[in-house]
């Protein structure tokens, strides 16, 4: 909920406490409607509740005790996970943070430049560039992953951090969003004024446009961050050395070994829980920024 909606409600306490702040005098609560939402919420929480319970159990108890009854082995599991091959798990976490953090940051910068140029400059081939961009939005990243592998293999970059980082910097959707933000939030007069004062294009962009595009660029960053964090196929293909793995590929590998060594299952489960925590926290803190409007082609932050 936005702050404006809340203050609108508190300014008119006599009216209903409807969250949209609309006039709503005769709105009775519907038990069925609320119940349907709560069933949906329970469904969404089920696997998360399970992983919290399961990660408190030792490998053996996992298969023998009732699923939703906790045991006291959480700390042991964390210690075991940390000891697994010299702290490999925490390296996966750091790798993930690196891929997602640096990748999303670079992606937001590149998108901001390109989006600003597409929104505010006229040049030959602009329309064509934009059409290529729109087509790019529809090209699925995973289809590209295999040819990207072969190209990077030719220059010897596969099985390095670069192999996962570089392909994810370019984001047609990010550029598309940045273009919309630049169009909507940076007035032409400001750019004119900057030019009159003799500022260079780069300076106009960095000092005038970027602050105005700020909230939009945060959204581009978030989109790319979640996208890279979620990406499985690209690192799965690109990396052979498990010390370079992000958490998704690492846990997938561990699960694979678990089919022959079931004792590893409790490590997989504890690892899954620990990997979700930072994301869920980040998500809960930032969730009010997620107002996605694909229909209008814009994301409002």
């Amino acid at each position: 909920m936005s702050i404006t909606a809340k203050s609108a409600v508190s300014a008119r306490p006599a009216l209903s406490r409807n969250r949209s702040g609309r006039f709503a005098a005769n709105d009775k609560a519907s038990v069925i409607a609320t119940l349907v939402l709560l069933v949906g919420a329970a469904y969404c929480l089920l696997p998360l509740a399970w992983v919290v319970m399961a990660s408190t159990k030792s490998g053996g108890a996992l298969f023998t005790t009732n699923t939703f009854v906790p045991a006291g082995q959480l700390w042991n599991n964390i210690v075991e996970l940390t000891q697994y091959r010299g702290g490999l798990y925490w390296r996966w976490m750091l790798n993930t943070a690196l891929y997602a953090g640096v990748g999303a940051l670079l992606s937001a910068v590149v998108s901001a430049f390109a989006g600003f140029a597409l929104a505010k400059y006229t040049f030959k081939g602009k329309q064509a560039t934009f059409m290529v961009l729109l087509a790019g939005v529809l090209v699925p990243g995973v289809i590209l992953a295999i040819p990207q592998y072969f190209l990077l293999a030719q220059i010897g970059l596969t099985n390095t951090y670069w192999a996962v980082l570089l392909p994810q910097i370019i984001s047609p959707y990010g550029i598309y969003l940045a273009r919309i933000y630049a169009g909507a939030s940076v007035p032409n007069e400001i750019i004119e004024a900057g030019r009159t004062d003799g500022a260079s294009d780069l300076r106009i962009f960095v000092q005038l446009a970027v602050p105005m595009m700020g909230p939009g660029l945060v959204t581009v960053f978030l989109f790319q961050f979640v996208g890279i964090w979620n990406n499985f196929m690209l690192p799965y293909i690109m990396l052979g050395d498990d010390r370079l793995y992000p958490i998704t590929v690492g846990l997938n590998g561990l699960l694979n070994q678990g089919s022959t060594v079931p004792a590893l299952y409790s490590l997989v489960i504890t690892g899954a829980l620990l990997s979700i925590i930072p994301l869920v926290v980040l998500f809960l803190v930032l969730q009010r920024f997620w107002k996605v409007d694909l229909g209008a082609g814009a994301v409002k932050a």
Partner: protein
Amino acid sequence: MLAPAAVLFVLFMAAPIVYTLVLSLQKTQVSGLGLGSGSRKTVFAGLSNYAAALGDPDFVSSVGRVGLYGLIVVPTMLILALVFALLLDSRRTRLVGFSRVVIFLPYAVPAVISSLLWGFLYLPSVSPFVDLATSLGIPAPNLLSPNSVIFAIANIALWGGVGFNMVVMYTSLKAIPSDIYEAARLDGAGEIQVAIRIKIPIILPSLIMTAIFSLIATLQVFAEPTTLKPLTNSISSTYTPLMKVYRDAFTRNDVYSASATSIVIAVAIFALSFFFLRVVQKRAFEEN
């Protein structure tokens, strides 16, 4: 200012596409016994890789599976997301903030991790569903059996995707000015009628966009079945088209046929997306 984007676009999108096209038209020719240098060379293959890819029974059945999977996932996803979005937007629902956050929450969980969690929930020796069935005295379901595994995968996709699509729809519902409803209410229209007659038509562009994005995601399903694979024998290494591409390229080292197959998949995704986009072009991607 476009330069960094343009360079990256060419290097990591255009070049890979061109390279795949080139590879897809080639094949390795083995002369003699295939021993010694020079006995293997790359020759132009024309469209034979495509013919082989399209005629490969593994590919055909993987396409069939993904088609069925899409028929399950896309409509269910959109209907559930729409129902939740309308309920959130309804003036008669309570606990809106809590439900919205919790239903959106799975979006924060990577597909591999959610497949892993659901995988254990499906695994007969761990599954609470089996416990539940046993205590109710009904036969325990095997959620990972060949017949039900497609629903098991669909459930994971739904779990991860409904909340995101719900937020997309909810955002566009919030953008509708409320005075639009006034006239309808004065005429005595109830919440449900307002939803069907006014809200849904207005947010139609959002619905179509979420449909396209869900469709694209569906056709390239890879992480979920790959993660579930070690838990069950019901998932083959060619279960979905992309899994087949992966196997051909990396297990069989048949780059050429993998390239042809991935071009076929990309073209299919493009064709379907453009077909949808053409229908709504003016409304969905309107220039500002």
